C-alpha cells in the first residue's frame, strides 16, 4: 500500500491507515450484521406462515381450539392477523426496527424481557461449556501430545469419540452414570452450580473433542518449527516448550473455531435444556415453534443471530490482535 522506499512516510501513515482500515472493518461488520438480522427476521416471518398451523391457535391456548367466531375475529383484529400478509410483514419489520418485539401469543407477556431472561440462562450454559471445553482440550492435548507414544493415541481416540457423540445420547449416559448409579449429581438442572454440571458436560465434551483434534494438529506442526529447536537448544524443559511456545501457536485455529463452536452450542442448547429441564433460549424456541408463537420465535432467532454475530466479530477481532498478519491480509 505504501512506497517501500519511503520508510519515514510509511511509519507516519501506517497508524492512521490502520485505524481507517479497522474502522472500515468494523463498519462492514455492523452493516453485514444488520443485513443478516433482517434476513433472519424475514425468513422466520415467512417460514412460520408457510408451514401448516394458524397463529390464532397459539393465542387460543393451543391447536384444536373451538372458540367462538367472535373470539377468533377479535383475536385476528387485535393481533393484526386479519391484514394481508405483506402488510403484516412490513408492520412486523417496522416494529422490529424499533426494537418492539411485541407480546407472546401463548404467554400474553412482553416478549423482550421474557426472552432476555432466557438468554441469560443460555449464555451461562454456553459460555461455561465453552470455557470447560477449552480447559479440557488444552489439558488433554498438552498432556498427551508428546512425539508419538501410546498417550497420544489414547488422547486422539478419546477426542474422536467425544466429538462423535450426539448430545441427547451423552446426556442420557451422564444421567444414568452420574445421577442414577453413582448418585453424585441431580438428573435435572436444579438452580445453582450443582445443576449446571451435567448440562455443561453434555455440551462441553463433544466440543472438547473438536478443539482437541484441531489443536493436536497445529501442535504437531508447531513442534516442527525452528523456534522449538532453538528453545530446546536453550535448555528449555519439555513442559516449558509446550506451555510457552507451542501452545500459543496451536491455540490460534481454536480461537477462530470458537465462533463456530458458540453457534453449535446454541443449537445444542435446544436438546440439553429440554433433557435437563433447564430454562433457556433453546427450550423457549422449541415450545414456541411447536405452537407457532411467532413473536417469541422471531425474538429468539434474532437474539441467537445477534449473539452469534457478536461472538464471531469478537473472535475475528481477537484473531487480529493475536496475529496482526490477519489484519493486513
Amino acid at each position, binding site marked *: 500500500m505504501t512506497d517501500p522506499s519511503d520508510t519515514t512516510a510509511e511509519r507516519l501513515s501506517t497508524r492512521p491507515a490502520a485505524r481507517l482500515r479497522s474502522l472500515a472493518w468494523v463498519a462492514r461488520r455492523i452493516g453485514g450484521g444488520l443485513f443478516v438480522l433482517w434476513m433472519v427476521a424475514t425468513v422466520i416471518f415467512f417460514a412460520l406462515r408457510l408451514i401448516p*398451523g394458524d397463529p390464532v391457535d397459539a393465542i387460543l391456548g393451543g391447536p384444536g381450539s373451538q372458540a367462538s367466531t367472535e373470539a377468533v375475529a377479535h383475536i385476528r383484529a387485535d393481533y393484526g392477523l386479519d391484514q394481508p400478509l405483506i402488510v403484516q410483514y412490513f408492520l412486523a419489520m417496522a416494529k422490529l426496527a424499533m426494537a418492539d418485539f411485541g407480546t*407472546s401469543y401463548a404467554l400474553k407477556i412482553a416478549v423482550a424481557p421474557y426472552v432476555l431472561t432466557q438468554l441469560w440462562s443460555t449464555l451461562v450454559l454456553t459460555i461455561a461449556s465453552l470455557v470447560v471445553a477449552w480447559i479440557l482440550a488444552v489439558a488433554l492435548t498438552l498432556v498427551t501430545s508428546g512425539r508419538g507414544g501410546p498417550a497420544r493415541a489414547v488422547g486422539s481416540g478419546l477426542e474422536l469419540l467425544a466429538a462423535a457423540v450426539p448430545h441427547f445420547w451423552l446426556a442420557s449416559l451422564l444421567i444414568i452414570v452420574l445421577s*442414577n448409579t453413582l448418585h453424585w449429581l441431580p438428573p435435572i438442572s436444579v438452580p445453582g452450580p450443582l445443576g449446571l454440571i451435567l448440562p455443561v458436560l453434555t455440551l462441553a465434551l463433544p466440543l472438547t473433542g473438536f478443539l482437541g483434534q484441531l489443536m493436536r494438529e497445529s501442535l504437531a506442526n508447531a513442534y516442527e518449527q525452528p523456534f522449538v529447536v532453538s528453545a530446546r537448544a536453550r535448555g528449555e524443559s519439555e513442559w516449558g516448550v509446550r506451555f510457552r511456545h507451542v501452545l500459543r501457536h496451536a491455540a490460534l485455529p481454536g480461537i477462530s473455531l470458537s465462533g463456530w463452536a458458540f453457534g453449535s452450542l446454541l443449537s445444542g442448547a435446544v436438546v440439553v435444556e429440554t433433557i435437563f429441564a433447564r430454562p433457556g433460549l433453546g427450550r423457549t424456541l422449541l415450545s414456541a415453534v411447536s405452537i407457532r408463537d411467532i413473536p417469541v420465535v422471531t425474538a429468539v432467532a434474532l437474539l441467537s443471530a445477534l449473539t452469534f454475530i457478536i461472538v464471531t466479530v469478537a473472535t475475528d477481532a481477537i484473531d487480529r490482535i493475536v496475529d496482526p498478519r490477519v489484519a493486513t491480509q
Partner: protein
Amino acid sequence: MSAPRILLLPLAIAATAALLAGCTATPEPAAEPISGGTLVYATGDAEPGCLDPHVGGNYPQALISTQYIESLVSKNADGEIIPWLATEWTESADGLTWDFTLRDDVTFTDGTAFDADAVKTNIEHLKDPNTASSTGYLAVGKIDGIDAVAANQVRFTLSAPDSALLESLSQPWVGIQSPTALERDQATNCESPIGTGPFIVTEWVKQQSITLERNENYNSAPDDAEHSGPALLDSLEWRFIPDAATRYAALQSGDVDVIDNAQPNNISSAESDPATAELNAPRPGASNRLELNSGKAPFDDERVREAFIRAVDVSPGIDSLFFGTAERSYSVLSSVEPDGVSMPDAFTVDPDAANALLDDAGWDMIDSDGYRTKDGVRLTLDFPISTNQSIPAEQSLFEQIQASAKDVGFEVNLKPTDLSSWYGALFTNEYNLVSAPYTKVGPDVLRILYHSDSIIPAPSGYYANLAQLSDPALDEILTTASQTSDAAERAALYEEAQSIIIDGYYVLPLYDQQNHYLYSTSVEGFRALPTVSAPTFYDAWLND
C-alpha cells in the same frame, strides 16, 4: 342392539367400577398424616401459557388449576356427581331452568366472597370473546341466562335441555375464580389466578416451576376427600420436565416426588422398585381410538372400513409395546365412563374376510409393490401422527398397524408431524386415519365427536367429528340423549349410539387415554380427581 351386548353391559359396568376402585384407592396410611413439607411434582405436559383455565382450556391447565380453582360440582370414584361449591341443585320439569344453592361460607384467596354474583361473573367471563375460551366456552354453551336470585342462589336458563350440564360444570375449565381477580387484565390473571382451592399460586418461573403455597383458610373440600380444613402440605413445587427419561430419573433420585405422563417402560420398571408406586387414572371422555375418515375415498365405502378393522390385530402390539400397562379397549368411550359399552365381538380379526371384502369393493388388482389398486389407483391411507400426542410406544404400534394392513394390500402412509401441522392436515381433510384423543366428562362427548354438526369447522378450522360420520339417525339419538335427564333412559340411548358408531366401522378403539402417575412411596394420600383425572394434593402428605 343385539342381545349379547345387553348382557355385556352389566359386565362392563362392573369392570369399570372395579377399575375405578383400583385406580383411586390410595395405600393405607402407615401412620397419622403429618402436616408440612413441600411436595415436588414434575409434569411432562406442556407448560401452560395461562394459569387461568378459562383462557383457551387445555389439559396442562386442568392439571395445575385443580390445585387452586374449584368447580360448582365434582365427581366421585363411582362416577356420581357430588356437591362442591354448590351444595344442591334442581332442574325444572322442562329442563330449561336450573337452580343451584351455593355454599355461603367460602371465600376466594384474595378475600372476595364466593356467591351467586361470582358464579354469574365467571360464566360471563367464559362467554366473553375477549377471554378467548374454547373448552369452557363449549361447556357452558347452552347457558343463556344467569341470575343471582339470592346471595347463595343462582339460576341458569338454558337454550335447550342439557343432560350433560353437571358433568360439564365439574370440569376444571369451568372452575370458579374470584370476580375481583377477573377484573384485572388478562396477563395478570394468567400469571396469578385466584380461586377457592387448597393452594395459592405464589410464583411462576417460566420454563422451570410454579410455586403454590397452602391456603390456610381453606374449607371447601369435596365430600370424597379424606379430611377437611387446610391441606396438609405447606407447599407444592410444580416443575416442568419435558423429557420422559429425565422425569423418571428425577423421581428415582428423589429430586421430585410425583411425575405424570410416565412411559410404559418406566411404569414397568417401577413395578419392581419398592420406593415407587403407580397411579393409573385414565382420562374421561373418549378412548384412544383410530378414526376412519368416512368423508372421502376409500373409507367412504363401508366394506373398505370393515376390511381395515378385520385386517389389523392391535392387541398383541399393545401388550408388548406398552409392557402390559395399557389394556385393550373395545369401546368408543373411556373405561371410566359408566355409560361406555365394550364390544369386543365387533373387532374380531380375520384377514381372509378382509381380503374378500376388498375384492368385493373393487380393490381387486395388486400392483408390483403388493398393494391393492382399483382403476389404477392404489389403496392408500394417509395417517398423520402428532408426535406431541402419540408417545413412542404408540408410534411403534402405528408402525405395526401399517405392517399388518399391508398384508391385505393397504398402503398406510404414516406421517409424523408436530401438533400444528397435524391439525393442518386434519383441517384440510388430508387424512384417512387419525388418532385424536378427546377429554370431556360424560358420554355427551359422543355428540361432540360423532354428531354431523361437528363436521362443520369451528372458526379456527377445528372440527371434532374426524370420522366424518354423518348419520341422521345417530344425530337424532345423540340430540335426544343430550336432553334426557333420566339416567337409565340416557344410558340406553348412548348405548344405541355406540352400537351405530361401532357397527358402521368408523372407529378402531385402542386403549384408554393413558394417564399414569408414578410417585415416591413416601407420598401418602395422593389421588386423581375423578372429573378429568387431574392430580389433587389436598389430602397428600410426606411420610419421610
